[in-house]
């Protein structure tokens, strides 16, 4: 019983870190720009495919490949912001941005399907199927490494947001774009870099996702609803909230799956969201909490 409980918590924490990597960019982009990037799911899959190409065709290790894929995804994010999002009028920006990112998702999905076909792929490396034995529990290396990567990357994001000049500009834009402009902040530049960072982090999430799950271009459909749930629960705009909510959701799901039934695990995932929002409508770390950090 105790062993099952500990194992479920370990599973939840390790899996949660993977989801945190995938959700961090989504919440960051919303926090600054009030854009719900519904292309996040397919960007995760794009990140997985980039790692796949580097690994299979160039023999580059999955984690080492992030040195290439993160900048590539950053440029793509800046490009989406500069080429599409910045051209939207302020009045209907929120609603139109959903349409635009949805279109981006459809285009990317079609392109990936065309290039790679519908066959499932999975990233491989020595650590994908191996695990370490700690106190009677097997901890898969890929999840442990993914967890450490999440801590490092989300820590770096936190540092950028709260300990740098750019972070101050970003948070100023997050609180009031007009006021930020008035004090000389180049809001468009901040937005472009933020979108770039948000998409860049997704490269890491995509790599770990692709190493733990078989994927094709259509795999994004199931992802986006879970990622949106996580950032709403954590508080839209909160990096720490994304991490906390991912871990909370996955731990709850693992416990329900172990002690009750997997049939109910997904339902509970969403039930937790409803309960938390009923008590804290802004999520665990809503806007107020984010700004107070």
């Amino acid at each position, binding site marked *: 019983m105790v*062993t099952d409980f500990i194992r479920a918590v370990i599973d939840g924490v390790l899996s949660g870190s993977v989801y945190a990597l995938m959700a961090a960019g989504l919440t960051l982009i919303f926090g600054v720009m009030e854009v719900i990037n519904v292309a996040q799911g397919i960007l995760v899959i794009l990140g997985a495919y980039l790692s796949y190409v580097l690994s299979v065709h160039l023999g580059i290790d999955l984690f080492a490949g992030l040195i290439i894929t993160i900048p590539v995804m950053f440029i793509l994010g800046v490009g989406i912001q500069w080429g599409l999002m910045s051209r939207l009028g302020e009045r209907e920006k929120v609603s139109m941005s959903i*349409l635009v990112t949805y279109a981006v998702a459809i285009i990317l999905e079609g392109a990936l399907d065309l290039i790679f076909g519908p066959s*499932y792929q999975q990233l491989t490396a020595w650590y994908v199927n191996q695990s370490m034995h700690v106190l009677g529990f097997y901890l898969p290396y890929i999840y442990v490494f993914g967890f450490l990567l999440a801590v490092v990357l989300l820590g770096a994001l936190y540092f950028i947001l709260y300990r740098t000049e750019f972070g101050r500009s970003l948070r100023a834009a997050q609180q009031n774009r007009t006021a930020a402009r008035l004090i000389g902040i180049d809001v468009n530049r901040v937005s472009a870099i933020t979108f770039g960072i948000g998409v860049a982090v997704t490269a890491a999430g995509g790599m770990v996702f692709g190493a733990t799950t078989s994927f094709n271009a259509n795999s994004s459909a199931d992802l986006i609803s879970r990622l949106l749930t996580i950032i709403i629960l954590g508080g839209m705009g909160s990096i720490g909230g994304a991490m906390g909510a991912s871990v909370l959701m996955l731990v709850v799901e693992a416990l329900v799956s172990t002690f009750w039934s997997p049939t109910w695990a997904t339902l509970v995932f969403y039930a937790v969201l409803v309960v938390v929002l009923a008590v804290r409508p802004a999520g665990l770390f809503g806007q107020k909490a984010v700004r107070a950090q």
Partner: protein
Amino acid sequence: MRSKVGRSRLFRTLGVAASAGALLAACGSSSSASTSGGGASSKPIVIGISLPLGGDFSADGLAFKQGYQLWADNVNAHGGILGRQVQLKIVSDNSDPAQAQTDYQQLITVDHVDLTFGPFSTLLTIPAAKVAARYGYAMIEGAGGGPTVFAQGLHNVFDVSAPVANAMVPFAKWLASLPPSQRPKTAAYPTSNDPFTEPQILLAKKIMEAAGIKTVYFNVFGSEVTDFTPIASAVAATNADVVMLGSVDVPTASAFIQDFAQQHYNPKAFIATGGPDQGSQFIQAVGQSNANGTMVPNTWYPGAKTPGSAALVQAYIAKYGGTASAVSADVAEAYSVGQVTQQAIEHVGKVNNQAIISYLHSGVTLTSVQGPVKFNALGENTAALIFGFQWVNGNFQQVLPLSDPASSGLQYPKPNWGA
């Protein structure tokens, strides 16, 4: 202040997103061939098909498309049917039952196709068959064998493959027949809540329990699950001798195998309802060493000795490349649909759905690359043979039933993962 504005914006936004989604979904199906009427005898026979070329079943949808196309190519190369060429009009339903329903409605009432072939999966076949029945079309299909399809009471459905519920029976009976010293003591049954998987698992579980094999894990998980780690870990914790997984696709099967390997859990036998039958896709996902010893029930494999099977494999490799092992059973299922339809048309001497339906209900035995086909009143293929297949050192080979001369080389206990 912001929250009120934000909330109003959010509702508007969700409305726009929903509308956009509906619009894009409506535009999502695309045709791969032009429509042609089928009235005059010189005109091609147009066959309308909706396939999941996107979404959860996209890999199977592609294999089905290949199977249908190979059959049409073969028929056309030999002068067509009754002297008429065959033309396929294939649209995509993106694995969505509602879209499948819309597609068949469109194919029949707008495109006026001559015949319809089935989509992929029990899930998509039900709405497709209902639409076809409404307009008096035969729905000849190869992957809608779940009991729920036949429970609809439709007179127009004909599944050329084996009824799904019986698929695991050869495996379960083989385990039950083992001497007590070799027979597994415990079994775990994680299964998705899919009409394709659950009936198979429940029937096999009953047979195995009757043979004294104790059930230590039985749970149903939703098809929307993306993280299988807690379920697989819970199965591994039971240390069951046998794992029977109710999966419809490669990602589910590979997620369980990956977790079992990570947990150093090596059951004596591992069989899945779907996934290991997907040829190279399965190998790519799990790796050859992890595939070794995994089993799957099916009615066909690339080495099958049935008439036309070798030619199908040859034609597949010539058109799509790869090796014989890469040819998915889906290809043969789709190909069989075409073969059965062709025999029916040639017998009745015309392209007439009512005549085809009557003929297929007449109790006649037809042939296909999957073996004999004979339909009962429900449209189930009562003559279908079901086999157990296993990956053995990179080869996908028939191992069950042991009484079949083509079965050989069963590995039990299976090798450890990675061995």
